[in-house]
């Protein structure tokens, strides 16, 4: 599917011709240090097409998604594998992440409320920020459970040629 997308033919006048069909793909262990490595590699892959601020948003969203898989989908188990694909096109960076862990609980895809900061210190939230950040920074977030796999897809509207 990604390969097909990469070979879409465009005419000479089509502005899409100017966009390199940049694709990043990586498979790695569902383990925090492997996640760090994948984050570093994916951000480095698009560093020339996005601003430092956009790179920060990309890394943050990917970190939240990947950490959720490590901590919840595989529940900290050591032998899980995560697959991450990123395609750069006219609308930004389209990301797809898959894993073989437990299904994503319903509700994670509903736009979450930000945990309230207007409470006494002792009641301040220490979690619940991750899905909020994912929703806040992405578009077209979608999830599908298929053949024992979790498939999560979303788009970051960054690195779009017209806006730069």
């Amino acid at each position: 599917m990604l390969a097909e997308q990469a070979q879409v033919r465009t005419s000479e006048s089509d502005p899409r011709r100017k966009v390199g069909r940049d694709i990043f793909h990586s498979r790695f262990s569902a383990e925090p240090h492997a996640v760090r490595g994948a984050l570093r590699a994916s951000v480095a892959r698009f560093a020339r097409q996005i601003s430092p601020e956009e790179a920060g948003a990309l890394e943050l969203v990917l970190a939240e998604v990947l950490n959720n898989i490590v901590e919840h989908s595989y529940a900290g188990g050591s032998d899980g594998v995560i697959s991450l694909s990123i395609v750069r096109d006219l609308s930004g960076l389209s990301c797809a992440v898959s894993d073989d862990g437990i299904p994503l609980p319903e509700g994670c895809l509903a736009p979450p409320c930000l945990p309230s900061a207007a409470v006494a210190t002792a009641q301040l939230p220490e979690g619940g920020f991750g899905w909020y950040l994912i929703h806040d920074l992405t578009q077209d977030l979608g999830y599908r459970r298929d053949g024992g796999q979790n498939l999560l897809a979303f788009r970051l509207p960054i690195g779009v040629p017209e806006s730069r």
Partner: protein
Amino acid sequence: MKLSAEASEGALVVRLGEARLDAAIAIQFKDRMREILLQPSPRVVLDLSGVDFLDSSGLGAIVSVMKGLSPGRKLELRGLTPNVEKVFRLTRMDSVFAIQPSAHQGGLRDAG
């Protein structure tokens, strides 16, 4: 984990010498901070100027450290780099902490 503490200007200044405060080190960070905060000082300043990436696990760890302070002690943050500042802003945790303005922010702190 590189975490150093020294008394300075009437405060205990803790400097995190790690480029990332993320899920990989969040628990270790909390544990080390608890040890460091056994030193009595009403004011604690956490210097994050060396940190260029913070995720929600790291943010949760900082909130946890603040919650663990005894009443009357304050945790202030210093040296937030742009990526780190953004996480505090997006989650509105910037309203919870005393954050010392960073050089790069100038007078634009309220612009976002």
